[in-house]
């Protein structure tokens, strides 16, 4: 808590924070209702998310009618229950995939003046330009900084069937190939649990579900996404993560947000620190809202 939430990338612990980008209107709603709303995969902006990403391997087709029937049952089932899946997306702080990446970051950082080095927050989860553009109304929205441990506690307390993990990025799109045994297991699961089978697939973290919902093309890699997945009852529209206020450690206002909204937001967030992101020449900084001594 406190000032540490604003530290540069190389000074914070990894995996400590999650970031949720949203529009100003939704931000007010989140603060007022003290909850984060999930959304349906069909409403994401990644076209591949709207479809079930599985395929079936070559099987022993000596009993191919049976196999084909199972494939059809499973595909129909998964297509149907997809409407009951809900996802809540977060970003994370940049992770260096290789030592070379880290070295480049450090070289970049060290090439800056002392002031710029101290102030530069590039790479932090609240300083992802693409996220500001796509999910925060072109920098007129907001990014919530949440404490990951607190979010996990809230999830464990409030949700029964869920799956919480980082998205994996892959340069090429390939569907998940379900092997014979897996095919039989899934079919039996659906037979046994019927509409509740999807709940079990999510909470037991079935590998194919993980692939279906947590793999994306590398094109999206700069989102550094982490997802919370849950299932709602049939016919139910909403899923939310309630009492999320406890986990919010800071609010970042977009660079294009006007003074009226920054002031309103600051007044609404009595106990939460609200600051504004800014782009000074070559660095990204976080600025306090208000006068130079406030």
């Amino acid at each position, binding site marked *: 808590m406190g000032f540490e939430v604003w530290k540069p990338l190389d000074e914070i612990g990894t995996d400590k924070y999650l970031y949720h980008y949203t529009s100003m209107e939704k931000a007010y709603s989140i603060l007022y209702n003290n909850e984060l709303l999930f959304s349906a995969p069909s409403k994401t902006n990644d076209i591949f998310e709207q479809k079930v990403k599985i395929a079936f391997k070559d099987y022993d087709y000596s009993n191919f009618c049976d196999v084909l029937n199972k494939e059809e049952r499973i595909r129909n089932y998964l297509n149907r229950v997809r409407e009951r899946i809900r996802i809540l997306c977060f970003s994370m702080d940049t992770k260096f995939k290789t030592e070379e990446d880290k070295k480049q970051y450090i070289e970049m950082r060290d090439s800056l003046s002392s002031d710029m080095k*101290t*102030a530069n927050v590039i790479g932090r989860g609240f300083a992802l330009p693409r996220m500001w553009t796509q999910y925060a109304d072109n920098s007129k929205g907001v990014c919530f900084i949440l404490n990951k441990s607190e979010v996990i506690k809230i999830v464990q307390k409030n949700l029964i069937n869920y799956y919480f993990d980082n998205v994996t990025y892959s340069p090429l799109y390939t569907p998940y190939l379900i092997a014979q045994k897996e095919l039989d297991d899934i079919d039996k699961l659906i037979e046994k649990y019927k509409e509740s089978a999807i709940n079990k697939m999510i909470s037991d973290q079935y590998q194919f579900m993980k692939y279906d919902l947590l793999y994306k093309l590398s094109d999206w890699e700069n989102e550094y996404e982490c997802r919370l997945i849950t299932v709602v009852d049939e016919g139910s529209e909403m899923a939310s993560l309630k009492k999320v206020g406890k986990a919010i450690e800071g609010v970042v206002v977009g660079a294009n947000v006007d003074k009226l909204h920054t002031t309103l937001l600051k007044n609404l967030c009595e106990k939460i620190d609200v600051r504004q992101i800014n782009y000074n020449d070559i660095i990204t900084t976080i600025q306090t809202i208000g006068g130079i001594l406030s």
Partner: protein
Amino acid sequence: MIRPNNVNYLKEYTTDQIIRLIYLDDKFFSPNKEISDKITDIANKLNFVIQNLNLKVARNIPYFSIGILSNITDLTRIIFRNISNIQTGIVMLQVSEQLNNYFANISHIVDCFRVSGALKMEKSEYNMNAKISFDSFFTEMIIIDVFLDIAFFNSYSFLKELSSEKKKDFNKLKYEYFKNNKLDCVFVDESNGELDYYSFAFSCHNSMMINSNTPQYMIDYDKYIKIWDGFIRTYFPNDVHVEKSVEKQIELRKNDHIPNDYHERFKDKKPGVYFLIRTDKKNIASKYKKEVCSLFGIDECEVGKLQIIKQEDFNKYRHLFKGEYVSSKRNSLYYGAHISPFKVVVQ
């Protein structure tokens, strides 16, 4: 609600005050009420800290006035800036040039760089004594800490009398003491052991204040005094503080309310700290009348009665000092009996 323990009253009655300035670049600073109110608020808190220290030490620690200017003067001790102005480097070079050419006798000057997420001290790239980078949470703390050390420095007669050159070296000694004694510090020291400045107040805050979402200034007074004592013993072991004569001290009391020969009443007093108290108002709240009359040995309350109390009795009579009228929706409350206190040190 104003409570007696939160009131600055000793400062009200003394002219023993020093002024120091904060430099703010023109681009941020145009005189406005917000900055003025904020500085007044910080100065009040600083003076409240000084008051509490004055209640503990047998020296007179001067009170403080803080000003803000967009020019450097002999009284400037803090350069205050943030990242808003990308031209900061150019401004700082200009400031540095001024300091080197025209203000070479300033004892120390601290580059206070306000930047989100920071809490560190390092060498200044602009030839100032130190660069302190701090998050906005600690704006108040940094200003109070820098100026508090100046006030405490000025409470020692032998330090005030140091030459300009020795005053410049003085802060290096403080940093050296900090390093050698491995004192706690709220800041991460990134100076590689080469800093020309330190405030002992940096070593007297607790983690509760630092980690809070809304830090309120808190300092460990006893630790602060102890560090200074240790430092003086180490670097000035043969120097003895000489307090002004009682007569000279009383001359610093505001408003000429004290008779010229009143200092004679301290002649036979043992060395120690006393408070010269005076009734400032006749019509005081009835709940205090009996106590005031008893304290001053009078039958009726009147203006101008004087009394001397010992330091150990200060807290006993604290509720009588000053007088505040507080009105709330439900009731009106009087605090204090309009008694003004003034510290006198007898050596």
